């Protein structure tokens, strides 16, 4: 039953992605974090949902995306170097088969980490990605947290959705990620247009000032791309980010929390 529900949800995301292919990228992130194929039983375990989602995300980007403001950063280059190093060490390992099993998730994660920045080309995409991460990890945290609070727990005694001490389901990893995501939880205006607050006459709360983090990241990326192309962005090098943000209509967002 659970498997069918998860499959229905994946189908729902695939369907919505037909209109907005970026949703297939979100689908891969959702599957990668929550691993519904390991929670559910039956049909979902026999379908390579992760591979399907990756192919949809990659294919959707190649075919449908406008690919504006896309740049290859030095971080992606570093990840590419790590991927090559991973490939070389795995191939030349003393126990190649065991090494390949051990590192199979590594090269997949590296590959997607290189690919992901190409797709995050708008503020809304960044926010949607942040929201999905918070909600997907929130499901694991809420469940595990309630069990610990109500029934006690301890090292090795946590009851997750799956009985597998790997990935996000490793208690130390989950604790670290949960704490690291705390600032994102305060992003109250996710998916709500900034103008909505002003039109309602409401004051933007203090936590909205933290919203600038995304703005700055994205605008710096846009400026870097324009800079490389010899466009207007290069000439804005001396303009502080805060002023750029004001032109977005977000008069309260300063880029600093």
């Amino acid at each position, binding site marked *: 039953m659970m498997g069918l529900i998860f499959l229905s949800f994946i189908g*729902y995301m695939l369907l919505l992605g037909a209109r*907005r292919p970026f949703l297939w990228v979100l689908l891969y992130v*959702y599957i990668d974090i929550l691993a519904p194929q390991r*929670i559910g039983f039956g049909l979902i375990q026999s379908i390579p949902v992760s591979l399907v989602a990756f192919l949809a995300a990659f294919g959707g980007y190649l075919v449908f995306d406008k690919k504006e*403001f896309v740049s290859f950063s030095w971080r992606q280059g570093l990840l590419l170097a790590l991927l090559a190093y991973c490939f070389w060490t795995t191939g030349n390992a003393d126990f190649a088969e065991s090494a390949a099993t051990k590192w199979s998730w590594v090269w997949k994660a590296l590959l997607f980490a290189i690919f992901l920045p190409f797709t995050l080309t*708008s503020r809304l995409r960044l926010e949607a990605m942040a929201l999905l991460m918070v909600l997907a990890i929130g499901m694991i945290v*809420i469940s595990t947290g309630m069990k610990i609070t109500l029934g006690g727990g301890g090292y090795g005694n946590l009851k997750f959705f799956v009985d597998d001490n790997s990935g996000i389901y490793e208690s130390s990893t989950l604790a670290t990620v949960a704490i690291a995501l705390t600032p994102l939880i305060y992003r109250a205006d996710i998916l709500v247009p900034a103008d909505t607050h002003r039109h309602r006459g409401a004051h933007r709360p203090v936590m909205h000032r933290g919203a600038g983090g995304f703005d700055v990241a994205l605008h710096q990326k846009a400026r870097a791309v324009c800079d490389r192309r010899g*466009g*207007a962005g290069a000439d804005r090098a001396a303009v502080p980010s805060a*002023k750029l943000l004001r032109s977005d209509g977000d008069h309260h967002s300063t880029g600093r929390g």
Partner: protein
Amino acid sequence: MIDYLALSIGHGLIAIALLRLVMRDGLDVDPFLQAFKPKASGRRKARGKTRQPSHRDASDLPKDLEAGEETQR
């Protein structure tokens, strides 16, 4: 039971968020970033391939930014 509760809350919220996301025009094309595009392509054509962009050229600033600069001065 707790698992079902957590999964229901999370999936319900994701489903709603995705539905709202699909209806937003800014998802694929960021309205603010579009302001960079026409000027970038225009200047690229004007300069040709050899000349490097200057790092200080007030003519490229959008009007609202220029106004902001002057107001501060």
